[in-house]
């Protein structure tokens, strides 16, 4: 019980602190990393959703499931998918950040003044 509570709290905390990191960010690299932090929260949340005390890894032999319970393999597949998405988006956003540094001469979001109103 307590472990579950801790896991869910950590997940919520990571998402929130990542989002607040973007709000208060003064550097676009920091913004992108904060976004990744927020996403890490979703990993913890998914793993916590599939966790079962005393269960083993969900690797089943040819004979099928034995007597011992396994943790939910579905959430782990979801986390893997999620990590792939995260890698793509982070790479794309960092590439844009590099290009912004070249074209705007700054990576401080407070100094990007091209779009408004």
């Amino acid at each position, binding site marked *: 019980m307590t472990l579950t509570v801790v896991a869910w709290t950590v*997940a919520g905390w990571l*998402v929130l602190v990542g*989002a*607040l990191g*973007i*709000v*208060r*960010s003064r550097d*676009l690299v920091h*913004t*992108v990393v904060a*976004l990744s932090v*927020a*996403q890490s*929260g*979703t990993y913890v*949340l*998914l793993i*916590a*959703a599939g966790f079962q005390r005393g269960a083993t890894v969900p690797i089943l032999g040819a004979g099928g499931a034995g007597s011992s319970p396994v943790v939910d393999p*579905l*959430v782990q597949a*979801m986390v893997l*998918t*999620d990590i792939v*998405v995260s890698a*793509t*988006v982070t790479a*794309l*956003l960092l590439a*844009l*950040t590099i*290009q*912004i540094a070249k*074209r*705007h001469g700054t990576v401080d*979001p*407070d100094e*990007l*003044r*091209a*779009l*408004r*109103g």
Partner: protein
Amino acid sequence: MNTVDVLAPVAVTGPVLLACLVLVAGRWLPRPVIDAVALAGAVGLAVCGALLVHATLAGDAVTWLGGWTPPPGAHPVGIALVVDPAAGGLVVLVGVLAAGALLFSWRYFASVEARFHGLVLLFSAGMTGFVLAGDLFTMLVFFELMGAVAYALAAYKIEEPRSLQGGLTFGVVNSLGAYLALCGIGVLYARTGQLSLAYVGETLAGARPDGPAVVGIVLVLVGWLVKAAAVPFHFWLADAHAVAPTPVCVLFSGVMAPLGVYGVVRVSAVAAPEVPALRGVLVVVGAVTAVLGAVLCVVQRNLKRLLAYSTIAHIGLFLVGATDGGARAWLVYLAGHAGVKAALFLLVGGLLARFGSVDEIDLHGAGRTGDPADRVAAALYVVAALALAGLPPFGAGLGKAALEESVPGALVPVVVGTSVVTAAAVLRAGLRVFYGVGPRPERRVDLERTSGEGEERETTGRLRHATATMLAAPALLLAAAAVVGVLPLIGRVGALAGERLADGGAYRAAVLGTGAVAGAVPEPVSWHPPGVVTGVLTTAAAVVLALLVLVSGRVPARRRRPVRRAIGPVVLGLERLHSGHVGDYVAWLLFGAAVIGIAVAAPTLG
């Protein structure tokens, strides 16, 4: 094996395979071949969608990928694609708009490589997958695919500073929205042990919703609302539209953002049947979005941004219609709006290619060149602006008339006002640019809002004439919008699709295999005399309003000042909120998610 079993997976994988082919072979193939292949793919997608609609008119169809059909009574482990007329119709819309965008860029992007075509095809696949997916996680995966491709497309002009900023903001805000949706999916999975929409709905049905169920549903809906650009999640849309290449704006405005509304309706109807507070909250969000979009539309001078705010306003109307009585009307409105708005974006793209600017003040009278092609463009623009106001027989007008018939009386002024005001703003800009109506506004350096100067051309040089494809694409899209309004078949299918989309019960029954529930056949959306009259009247009102704004420039400044003093600070305050700062946008996202969460949870749980 029936039609749906073959076509539904092909509609998703076909464009992906074609995109890979175009990207790999694009290096060796001549440009016209790439154009033709991509265009054929988009048209094929539209045909595929039409066949899917035809196959599902009698009842929703489910196809389990890889033959993972769950045995009766067992929980599913496979991935289902679920097709109903609404989903099929949206696939048609994706195909038609992608074809329009590709046709327009035939000669437009002179220096473009095959990667543009590849990205457009991948983008179409992402949207198709989102529409057809029958479970929450598959929806999210395609949501992310369409998101990632859309960020790349928005920042396509990587040498232009504004484009980069808009693309990055779009990426950060939409990704965060997707992560909130993923949290919601995790919570719902923990609560119900299911990912399939129908099974989640079945598990939650018949009981008073508990905390986890409400939190999960709200988080998922917030994710989709970010894509729909509902207030206060709308900030990214104007920035992304102002910077994205014009053919891409067609897809963003016509179908990508409205897909957010589709997602909201689908999930709330199928998975959250027992949360009545949701409807009221969504109606309020929609109405606020419509009003705010209309107000901000009026004050823009960058034409693409102006059209973007008009899209936000119309998405607000779709949300209102979809959640409050207008189920039969809003899909027809969506289709009609998509054609008209797409034509307007392409005509603005033509201005950029001809004159190197999309600024209303800068381009005052620029369209009066006497060139026949420019005259055609001017006429098309005016017709499209009038169609946006509700001019019969265009589809936007038909959808608006049907929406006014179906929503509660208190919301009718919102629908009428929004369409009149946004169309007047669009018409005002067009009359200034194409005909030079009214005095030339003073040129000023604008610190408060984005101008339309200095945008990078999408052609190698200034075009001396608008090319045939650049005029044909908007003309065809406008004709498609007229077809939506004229063809009785579309009104009939649109009404059926909207009602079935709002009825989660039929969807759940189809997926669970408990026997198809045949719903009542709704009254088709068609022109009635009152609808025609209001359509003509709102069009006239938009024309009068636009002309009033244009001649008000002749009124002495002394007389104008009281008006400006009264409403100026409010509008200026609203504009300043749109700071272009990604941190501000994320703060609004968190605020909006919290408010919607409290508004839904308090009456449901309390």
